[in-house]
């Protein structure tokens, strides 16, 4: 994704560089950096990037929003930017205007279900909802007897059990017990929970790819500084080969994620080709997070295993992001079933469709 010629990304990168420099964040034990960062992002209209002007957002294209998420991954930004963007996007699918402030998506896992009761109330439980505790509103996808609905819910109406994911970010359990939404509308024809999960999965893929780019960058830099046996460790062939593999994993993650983003941005519907792209991105990026992250730690030795070093902010978050909106095992099973249903002779035509 183009970095320099994209005004949305440029704006975001400038804000991240000023207010979310990982080293500063790392040394700030009270998270006092979060409020000013969120304020700057909000003033730039970034959390509501995917919400059209007439629904209160800044109306950026899907493509620009995806590029923004990739940049957010490069800074391992720990504020609910991706979540609020996705929530705004979901609400906009049903023509619901987005409120101000932090939002998140309910449910965030393909297995969890929220149901719409006959009296118009929402009930159900959703685990692993990112930043639910920080959110003022939830964008909810629920199932009623007439199909899928999209609702805006006041977050204080839900019961939240706090949790932390592997990356030390909030990942909470949200229970809705006969909650009346602020607004509720039918989802567009054909819109299903799978679409939301694929969209969320691509968002996470772009963030993982960004984190891997950052890990490659700091690992290369570290290997050129650290001296052992009177040489920079970057001069040892074994270290070079590890970094070459990390570069490969980072490149694969970025290629899969940007390809899926491009597919969604240009598709009219979530057809099989988009499904292939989005599911593949989540699977491959999760694999890259595992392989790439372990190499980045290997290159850094013990220092990278400390809370004082910034590496874990990328590596653990990339690992944590694997779990949101369906893990790679989930999507692999689903993609495998799709391929099997289409049949052996349709596999290559599917792969070669783009």
């Amino acid at each position: 994704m183009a970095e320099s010629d994209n005004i949305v990304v440029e704006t975001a990168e400038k804000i991240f560089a000023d207010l979310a420099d990982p080293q500063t964040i790392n040394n700030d034990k009270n998270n006092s950096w979060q409020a000013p960062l969120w304020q700057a992002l909000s003033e730039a209209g970034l959390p509501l990037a995917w919400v059209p002007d007439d629904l209160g957002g800044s109306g950026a294209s899907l493509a620009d929003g995806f590029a923004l998420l990739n940049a957010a991954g490069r800074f391992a930004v720990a504020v609910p930017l991706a979540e609020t963007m996705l929530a705004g996007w979901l609400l906009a699918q049903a023509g619901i205007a987005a409120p101000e402030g932090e939002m998140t998506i309910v449910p965030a896992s393909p297995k969890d279900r929220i149901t719409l009761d006959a009296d118009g109330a929402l009930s159900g439980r959703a685990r692993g909802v990112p930043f639910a505790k920080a959110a003022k509103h939830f964008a909810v996808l629920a199932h009623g007897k007439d199909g899928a609905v999209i609702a805006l819910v006041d977050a204080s109406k839900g019961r939240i059990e706090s949790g932390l994911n592997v990356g030390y970010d909030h990942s909470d359990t949200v229970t809705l017990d006969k909650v009346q939404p602020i607004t509720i509308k039918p989802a567009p024809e054909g819109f299903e929970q799978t679409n939301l999960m694929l969209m969320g999965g691509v968002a996470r893929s772009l963030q993982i790819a960004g984190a891997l780019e950052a890990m490659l960058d700091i690992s290369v830099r570290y290997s050129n500084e650290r001296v052992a046996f009177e040489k920079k460790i970057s001069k040892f062939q074994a270290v070079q080969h590890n970094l070459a593999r990390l570069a490969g994993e980072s490149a694969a993650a970025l290629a899969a994620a940007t390809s899926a983003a491009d597919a969604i941005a240009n598709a009219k519907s979530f057809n099989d080709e988009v499904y292939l792209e989005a599911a593949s991105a989540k699977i491959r990026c999760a694999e890259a997070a595992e392989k790439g992250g372990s190499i980045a730690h290997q290159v850094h030795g013990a220092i990278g295993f400390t809370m004082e070093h910034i590496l874990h902010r990328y590596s653990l978050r990339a690992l944590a992001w694997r779990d949101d909106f369906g893990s790679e095992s989930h999507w692999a099973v689903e993609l495998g079933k799709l391929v099997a249903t289409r049949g052996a002779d349709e596999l290559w035509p599917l792969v070669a469709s783009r």
Partner: protein
Amino acid sequence: MTAALRFDPIRLPEKCEQLRKEVRAFLAEEIAAGTFDPNKPNREDTDAPEFSRRVGAKGWLGMTWPKKYGGQERSFLERYVVTEEMRVANAPTRRFFVADRQSGPVLLKYAPEHIKMEILPRICRGEICFAIGMSEPNSGSDLFAAKTRATKTDGGYLINGTKIWTSSAHIADYMIAIFRTSPPTKENRRHGLTQFLVKMKQPGIKVNPIGQITGQYEFNEVVFTDHFIPDDHVLGEVDGAWKQATSELAYERSGPERFLETYYVLTELVRAVGPNPDTRSAEGIGRLVAQLHTMRRMSVSVAGMLQAGKEPVVEASIVKDIGTVWEQQLPHRVRDLAAFVEETATNRETLERQLDFAIKTAPKLTIQGGTTEVLRGIIARGLGLR
């Protein structure tokens, strides 16, 4: 970010899709006519001269080259589509593939005009086969250790020495080879190698076949004894072959042939598990498809870079590294999953026969065209580590 490598999500243009349909239709006809069996990758296909000519007649060889040499002036992306369809169908491409991918482009860049006019149209017609003469008994990864000598004589050079692992030398009409014209210098051990066009089946060349562990014959030893090569068969700069050899690598390393060589076992596994796979099979297939899809998107992206006139040496090396490691593991992963296939699967025997061959093929995949270790060295250089 200093180290970031970009793989833009290139889409194949509409005319590629049209071409893809034509290639599929052509291959379906060839299969129906019994030219080859797509389910039998282990056949001996060294000699499929008529098939080569028919591919040439379609205009699918030398596709990107100038029309005056018999080419079609089409894009790299169109050539890409033809290559991948041929690979996936297991078509017998060995006779023309090296010339189309590598030797032709080298001649286009470095051969004198009259040689281009003589040879390139024949490659485009699918009439001639090329071999690559780089490796020697004591020089593989370390190309600059090559010793086979080209000694200046009246009107040309006399060649003495041995090339080895030369694929298809036994059926080749020509070889593009590097020979030593001078010793390396103290400052530059890469100095002193020159690229030559060798006409095979001439006095002073003896080709000895070498069997491979798959049971096939593809490799050869090629022994030169006072073999004469005329001056106008020198390609490019005398003593400067190393520059020429490295700039061609992006073409050799990032194509679909670098991850599709064992692909057929995946199709066959999907056939064997049927429409309702158990969870383990579904997950295994899903992961393999996601990995394949990702590599293909990277490879298409590199084809787009080549089309745009770039020299993506590092990106191409990454695609070859990831791609060949994948195609090497693929038969083993499919074997894991095939353990759960019902005894009654109608294609069980085909799958087993294919796995047997793919597992024997696998070890070579990360060696041919430059080993994994050498590629990772190139990537490391691209990252600024050396």
